[in-house]
């Protein structure tokens, strides 16, 4: 198959960047999107051009390294990550735009590589259960209803790729943040510090410069892990209740 690629190239740092036109010829239809980029990069190198920088690692849709927006869709058309997208999904002769995730809080490092450490900082602000490794109680001492555990797992499935923020017209990270708040807040082990967690994580999310949710639900549509936007609703509620409780405690 042949494709006409328009690949975003941006020098390290603050360069403005722009599209480079690359013709990708004789691409096997069984190749994955990233393998197509491998082939393109090999040919660029052979011609003395510097290959396109892009993040990738596990190539089985779980590590969350992929950060490509393909024809305007973060992680490309269909469910799943860009590494799980195969070229047979496209038609011969297609023009394909490849851009990095565009979110203010994810600055471009080079070409298609972005810096997503804002997510790590949001998690560090409270996305954990404070417990010490050592003699935890027996794992079956606290029963957790299957429905609760399953719902927590729906949220915990988030792979932290940032496609939600990249798809959101507001650059909002609420699906990511709410998934962690939902996962930990649903489990009995996570409840004692649930109020503090939601307040801190939301404050950090705002401070990192992510936008706000306008209920477009584009995040839900691109999420490779299928995290539902209902978790954002839960976070909205949890945050308001936690703020009220905090206010009451501050005056008591």
């Amino acid at each position, binding site marked *: 198959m042949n494709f006409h690629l328009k690949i975003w190239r941006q020098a390290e740092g603050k360069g403005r960047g722009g599209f480079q036109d690359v013709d990708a010829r004789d691409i096997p239809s069984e190749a994955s999107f990233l393998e197509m980029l491998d082939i393109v990069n090999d040919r660029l190198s052979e011609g003395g051009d510097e290959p396109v920088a892009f993040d990738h690692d596990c190539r089985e849709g779980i590590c969350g390294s992929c950060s490509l927006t393909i*024809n305007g869709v973060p992680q490309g058309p269909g469910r799943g990550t860009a590494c799980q997208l195969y070229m047979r999904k496209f038609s011969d002769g297609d023009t394909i735009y490849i851009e990095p995730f565009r979110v203010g809080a994810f600055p471009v490092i080079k070409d298609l590589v972005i810096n997503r450490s804002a997510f790590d900082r949001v998690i560090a602000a409270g996305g954990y259960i404070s417990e010490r490794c050592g003699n935890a109680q027996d794992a079956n001492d606290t029963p957790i209803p299957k429905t609760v555990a399953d719902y927590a797992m729906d949220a915990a499935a988030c792979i932290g790729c940032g496609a939600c923020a990249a*798809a959101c017209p507001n650059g909002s990270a609420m699906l990511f943040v709410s998934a962690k708040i939902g996962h930990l807040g649903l489990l009995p082990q996570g409840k004692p510090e649930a109020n503090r967690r939601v307040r801190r994580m939301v404050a950090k999310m705002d401070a990192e410069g992510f936008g706000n*949710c306008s209920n477009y639900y584009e995040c839900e549509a691109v999420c490779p892990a299928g995290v539902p936007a209902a978790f954002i609703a839960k976070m909205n509620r949890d945050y308001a209740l936690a703020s009220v409780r905090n206010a009451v405690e501050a005056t008591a």
Partner: protein
Amino acid sequence: MSVASVYKGPRQANPLWAFAVSSIGRKWIVGISGGLLILFVLAHLAGNLTIYVGPFGEGINVYAQALHANPVLLWLARAGLLAVFLVHIGTTMSLIIANRRARPQRYAVKARLQSTIYVRTMALSGLVVLSFLIFHVLQFAGGLSPYSHLYDLEGRHDVAAMIILSFHNPLVSGFYLLSLVLLGMHLSHGISSVFQTFGLNGRKSSGLIKHGGLLVAWALMIGFASIPVASVTGFLKVLPDERRPDRKLTASSNS
């Protein structure tokens, strides 16, 4: 040891203020003000529909008289309503500015996945509805309508006639209908959004809330739109001039 001496950690910003300026807090403010406005729209529609009571829409005249019975309360309510509007619009503007900053660079190719036309036109529909509201208030409540000074058989202000006659002007009814469509669009997203913002949207109820919101929004729109349609088609009739107590001020003399 007294309770007061327990150390509570370093001083923080006022927690309620922190909430009010946070992203989610501002959503709540937009949601609460929007919710109040939806309630107002519902009440307003209920009031408007009284125009169908009585042969010449006298029901709405009774309703209007009752509404004006206590001017202090009325103006307080109006001031409150205005404040809610200002909060709704002002907070939304602050969010729009923040959201633009959060996404400084657009994609070369725009793709739409599952966002509705309603959410993508919220700002536009909001602005059109706002401009309509200014005209609407000036026209009917501000007394700028040429039919503002009619009185019915009981000597009440003939609000029904003012409304029906105004709608006979195609420009007025056209703008009214257009604005209603946009209001319907605004509420199509707005109603379910209020539930999402308040966290009343669960994974099972989300379909119900989405479709219920749409249904209520368009039912509201149809309710409002029925009045200009009924006016233009002649279903709603105006008290004939010859029966008015004060023959100097008639509908025909003004038109």
